[in-house]
């Protein structure tokens, strides 16, 4: 085991695995449910899968956004749902749950916990998520112009087309493949073959964009002896890293994702081929960028769950990629999987984890 500093991939100090995963059915609207009500069944399912109770968990970490909830400290109500009594060791990231999983993984690596519960949730339906996401842009120079998330993704898609790395037909085929894969995913929001649809923002059509929806997900991590007690075929975390790029689109090459490549390098993704990749690519064009950055060949099963094009609950969609990759290992359908999560406009921030089926 070597410290990373800024060098190459490092062996984690401890063998940690994802031992359980649960998610909601992702829906366009859940007006009848509060966030806590949406989350509670998922928490129960992931705990039931391992037989653990809240009081057995060494560390709890969640990811969510006050801006989706429309109020400050929105995560406090979710904590009530967890049942934090007696008091628990707990933390929260105002990020996608994939980063909550990262924080929990680090906590386990320190030896201060042997198990962790990670959850995240997001309801996009109460507002206009395209408008809401403009509030995460540079508040002085960009946000006042309200460029929405689809418009920014369209800039990226057009840059790819201009660079000769994709065309509209290629993008449409990604949408088609993702949604065909989602037919086997009972939780997906959009399933089956669908027409490309009209332009939303040229060159992106309806089919190139993710559905807007509500959903939640939860994962349990474990280390050491606990792993085998909790899961027949655990998904071992061989490496995990995340990197951020400059915020301004003007200083980035939108046809590339150097932060994904760097994160994958540090996570050890390039040491051996993976058979599965769950990519958090809400737009078809982003899958093109990520496939290249992560050097994924045609033999890799990309987004067998249908990916974010089939269900994109903001703040949970990245954690779901880790969960889906792990679940595929749990089921014996993968031996080595890459899971990816993203945050920020046009793939600004990216996380990569490498999961394996054998010790």
């Amino acid at each position, binding site marked *: 085991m070597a410290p990373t500093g800024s060098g190459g991939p490092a062996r984690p100090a401890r063998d940690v695995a994802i031992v359980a995963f649960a998610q909601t059915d992702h829906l366009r609207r859940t007006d009848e449910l509060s966030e806590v009500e949406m989350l509670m069944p998922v928490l129960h399912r992931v705990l039931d899968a391992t037989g653990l109770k809240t009081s057995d968990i060494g560390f709890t970490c969640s990811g969510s956004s006050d801006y989706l909830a429309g109020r400050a400290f929105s995560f406090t109500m979710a*904590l009530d749902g967890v049942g934090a009594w007696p008091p628990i060791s707990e933390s929260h990231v105002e990020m996608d749950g994939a980063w909550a999983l990262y924080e929990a993984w*680090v906590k386990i690596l320190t030896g201060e916990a042997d198990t962790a519960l990670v959850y995240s949730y997001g309801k996009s339906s109460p507002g206009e998520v395209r408008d809401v996401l403009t509030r995460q842009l540079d508040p002085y120079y960009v946000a006042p112009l309200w460029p929405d998330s689809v418009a920014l993704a369209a800039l990226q898609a057009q840059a790819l087309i201009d660079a000769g790395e994709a065309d509209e037909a290629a993008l449409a085929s990604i949408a088609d493949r993702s949604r065909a894969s989602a037919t086997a995913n009972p939780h997906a929001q959009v399933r089956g073959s669908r027409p490309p649809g009209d332009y939303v923002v040229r060159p992106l059509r309806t089919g190139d964009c993710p559905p807007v929806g509500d959903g939640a997900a939860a994962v349990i991590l474990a280390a050491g002896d606990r792993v085998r007690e909790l899961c027949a075929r655990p998904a071992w975390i061989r490496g995990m890293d995340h990197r951020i790029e400059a915020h301004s689109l003007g200083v980035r090459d939108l046809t590339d994702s150097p932060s994904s490549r760097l994160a994958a390098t540090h996570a050890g993704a390039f040491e051996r081929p993976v058979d599965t990749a769950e990519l958090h690519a809400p737009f078809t064009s982003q899958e093109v960028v990520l496939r290249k950055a992560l050097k994924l060949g045609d033999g890799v099963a990309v987004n067998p769950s249908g990916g974010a094009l089939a269900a994109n609950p903001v703040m949970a969609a990245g954690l779901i990629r880790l969960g889906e990759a792990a679940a595929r290992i749990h089921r014996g359908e993968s031996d080595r999987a890459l899971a990816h999560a993203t945050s920020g406009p046009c793939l600004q921030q990216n996380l990569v984890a490498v999961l394996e089926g054998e010790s």
Partner: protein
Amino acid sequence: MSKEPVAVVGIGQTKHVAARHDVSIAGLVREAAQRALADAQLTWADIDAVVIGKAPDFFEGVMMPELYLADALGAVGKPMLRVHTAGSVGGSTALVAANLVAARVHRTVLTLAFEKQSESNAMWGLSLPIPFTQPLLAGAGGFFAPHVRAYMRRTGAPDTVGSLVAYKDRRNALLNPYAHLHEHDITLEKVQASPMLWDPIRYSETCPSSDGACAMVLTDRAGAARSPHPAAWVHGGAMRSEPTLFAGKDFVSPQAGKDCAAEVYRQAHITDPRREIDAVEMYVPFSWYEPMWLENLGFAAEGEGWKLTESGVTELDGDLPVNPSGGVLSTNPIGASGMIRFAEAALQVRGRAGEHQVEGARKALGHAYGGGAQFFSMWLVGAEPPTP
């Protein structure tokens, strides 16, 4: 399994004020970060990862501002994590950063917390009406005042204790060049004559709204060996959370606070906090929380905290100085306030607290809490490396 010892080798704060109209949010955080790097005599290139915290995004009106702040904090090409645990976030952020070093995932980490409260109104930002949910009426003061009254009833504390704390902290702040409130003409009589806001909390017993940022450079044993100034060593750190509202919750002395302190003392081999700890930076946004937390943190028996305060034990020249920096009562950029407590504790054991230095401080406690007195984060730092 063994953890890497974690050292604080750089600390930077902005001069906290009501409104920093001269800088953007990015300019504010960069100022604190550069001062922390200068203290450590390191450059941006020496930093492996950045962990940033602040309280609700609504305070500045920027969703997930870490995305926009990546450039200003030299984080491009590096890992960047954003922590949010309500008022305790500054402390939690430091602990998440410390864990990256302790787990040997990274060697040197920059951690920073900020709030630019002049961009909005914190009281109303916390008072949004939510269907079927207990509102935080009239901001934090309205929520906490009944718990202060409960403390007074329970312990029989005379109603003068709160003003003693405010008078002490505001005088301490005069010795801290970074503190927001510098009330040179402060007197005990002025505190006691200030308007009643939320009975029994008077105007001068409340925290201000500040713009400010605090940053720390955390590193491993090898990094500490290269440090030009003495390091503060993390001997213990913990977070504990409990629900907001439930039957049986003790708002006067929450169990999560007791458990968190007990865990920190266990890690740091502290058996008698009153004797073994030399200085305390505790999160006291309303003056009465000093005696309340003295009990919650194990410095006084239940019902006895106010006696320590009244007898002068918590004064700067007392036996157990509490908030030598002037504390949250003198400076409150909400998201940064917890980290300032952690950083000020570290300054004390590094012997670098300037005019408000507690002579001979070897062990100090940094404490933060948030939400409905439900999120707690604490660390204990020492002048010597921890013994395994």
